[in-house]
């Protein structure tokens, strides 16, 4: 490590004291379920924007996807386009305002609760909760792995110790302080991330001779693309992969569309729309959210690609060759440790730590509330209580830690894309229908949710070869890693499952209207 460990530990301790203090503030202000679950519906717009952005952007975006940009190039900027256009503008303006208003009218306190109340259906609440409880630990474990890898490489702490300590600190304020503690700490962490990423962009371009020179140098490296990547369609780090090639399909369908669209139906983000008192707060949050996301993913993808120029100039190798054990998740940390001044390394380290903690805290909270509020209550164990939700949160945290020890180390970006794809496929059509239909059809929503989740799983397990080969179900049942040939093997499950889910919803809605007898009551809109 380039930076003095003592300095980093001292600054980290100051940061942790600040985080714990904000967590304690959230704990003191939490008087009941509304505070614990939706932060009392009185959150300041800047806190909302920073919390939303910091939850949205994790180590996955900075380390994982930055590493992918180092490997595949600047084409990842299209994910930033979707992150801002869909993840902020459309999410807040089109979905956020409706979600806030309907959530407030129905007194919904979680995403599954919102779905259940919009459709007047315990099934919708329970099933949405089930998808979260089953699917979110995968994403959570990826965030844990990213954070622990970073702490291990920075402080030379054993990986197991890093992972458990990291989870325990976040768990402390999430379990005790609920969403108020999560959002207060998110705001601090978001601020640190913004500062860190801004400095990273500036220093990277300064070090490489300026914007034009650095980008030109990167474009000139196209003949250094490894043979295996060139055969997959990669043309360089400052150009898009060949249209329709396996790498193009992976970049566009899995990374850009999978994550870009998937963010619209992320339960941990949707619940934040219900934490403000009026639409004015959402309007103001858009002002902060757009630049924040630009400075997160835009910088990560740009700097990620440019690490090739740095490593080529300093070591004569491309970024992929500079990765530790070939793991692309190590490229950004290696670049920062090798290239940046000591003081800024500390800031970047804090920014990365903050990114991991902010996302992790939100995931812990959503998993705990889904299990403790949406699922356990529905099994007839009595009224909701904070103590039960807190216990459920601890259970989900432990499950995620166990999963983190089982999952491979280079899973961060893929696990993120998988979870976002699952959420979009299962929830997005039914969520949009609930928000924009005067009489949302429960029948159509049920069909859409089941069809979307099932199609996503089947395509993941039997067709999309990067997952199907790893899972081994297809090989076990059919003797082949994927049951369909290329190019289908490179098409992300989202691209199949989301349109299918939307189509099933439309067909179900039409059938329901024809029957003239919707199963659920009139909608909330």
């Amino acid at each position, binding site marked *: 490590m380039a930076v003095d460990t003592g300095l980093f530990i001292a600054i980290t301790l100051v940061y942790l004291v600040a985080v714990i203090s904000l967590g304690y503030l959230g704990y003191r202000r939490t008087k009941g379920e509304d505070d614990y679950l939706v932060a009392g519906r009185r959150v300041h717009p800047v806190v909302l924007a920073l919390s939303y952005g910091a939850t949205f952007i994790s180590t996955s975006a900075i380390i994982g996807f930055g590493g992918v940009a180092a490997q595949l190039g*600047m*084409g990842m*900027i*299209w994910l*930033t*386009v979707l992150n*801002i*256009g869909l993840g*902020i*503008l459309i999410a807040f*303006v089109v979905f956020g*305002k409706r979600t806030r*208003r309907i959530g*407030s*009218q*129905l*007194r919904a306190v979680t995403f599954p609760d919102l779905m259940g109340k919009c459709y007047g259906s315990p099934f919708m609440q329970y099933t949405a909760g089930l998808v979260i409880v089953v699917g979110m630990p995968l994403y959570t474990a990826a965030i844990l792995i990213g954070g622990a890898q970073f702490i291990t490489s920075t402080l030379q702490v054993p990986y197991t110790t890093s992972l458990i300590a990291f989870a325990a600190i976040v768990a402390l304020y999430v379990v005790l302080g609920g969403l108020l503690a999560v959002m207060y700490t998110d705001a601090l962490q978001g601020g640190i991330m913004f500062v860190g990423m801004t400095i990273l962009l500036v220093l990277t371009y300064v070090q490489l001779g300026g*914007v*034009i*020179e*650095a*980008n*030109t140098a*990167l*474009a000139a490296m196209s003949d250094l693309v490894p043979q295996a990547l060139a055969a997959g369609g990669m043309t*360089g780090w*400052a*150009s*898009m992969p060949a249209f329709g090639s396996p790498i193009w399909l992976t970049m566009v369908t899995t990374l850009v569309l999978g994550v870009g669209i998937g963010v619209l139906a992320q339960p941990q983000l949707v619940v934040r729309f219900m934490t403000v*008192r*009026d*639409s*004015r*707060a*959402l*309007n*103001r*949050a*858009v*002002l*902060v*959210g*757009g*630049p924040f*996301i*630009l400075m997160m993913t*835009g910088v990560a993808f740009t700097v990620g690609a440019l690490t090739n120029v740095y490593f080529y100039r300093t070591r004569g190798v491309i970024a992929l060759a500079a990765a530790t054990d070939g793991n692309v998740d190590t490229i950004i940390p290696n670049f920062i440790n090798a290239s940046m001044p000591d003081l800024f390394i500390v800031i970047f380290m804090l920014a990365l730590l903050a990114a991991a903690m902010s996302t992790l805290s939100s995931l812990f909270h959503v998993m705990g509330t889904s299990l403790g509020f949406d699922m356990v209550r529905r099994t007839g164990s009595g009224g909701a209580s904070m103590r039960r939700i807190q216990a459920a949160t601890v259970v989900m945290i432990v499950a995620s830690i166990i999963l983190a020890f089982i999952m491979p180390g280079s899973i961060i970006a893929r696990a993120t894309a998988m979870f976002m794809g699952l959420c979009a496929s299962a929830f997005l059509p039914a969520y949009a229908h609930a928000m924009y239909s005067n009489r949302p059809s429960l029948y159509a929503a049920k069909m859409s949710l089941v069809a979307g989740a099932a199609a996503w799983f089947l395509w993941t397990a039997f067709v999309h070869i990067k997952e199907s080969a790893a899972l081994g179900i297809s090989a076990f049942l059919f003797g082949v890693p994927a049951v369909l040939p290329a190019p289908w093997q490179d098409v992300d499950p989202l691209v199949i499952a989301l349109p299918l889910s939307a189509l099933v919803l439309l067909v179900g809605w039409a059938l329901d209207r024809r029957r003239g007898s919707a199963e659920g009551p009139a909608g909330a809109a």
Partner: protein
Amino acid sequence: MFGIPDPAIWIGYLLALGFTLGCMGYGLLNWNNGVGEEEDGS
């Protein structure tokens, strides 16, 4: 543009910047809109 020869890349950068400005413009133009909904559902 910006030293990037492939239009598919620099158009992406322009769009990212454009959406960011769009977010900022929307927030500023609607700074005080929506305040009347404060007591919805309360």
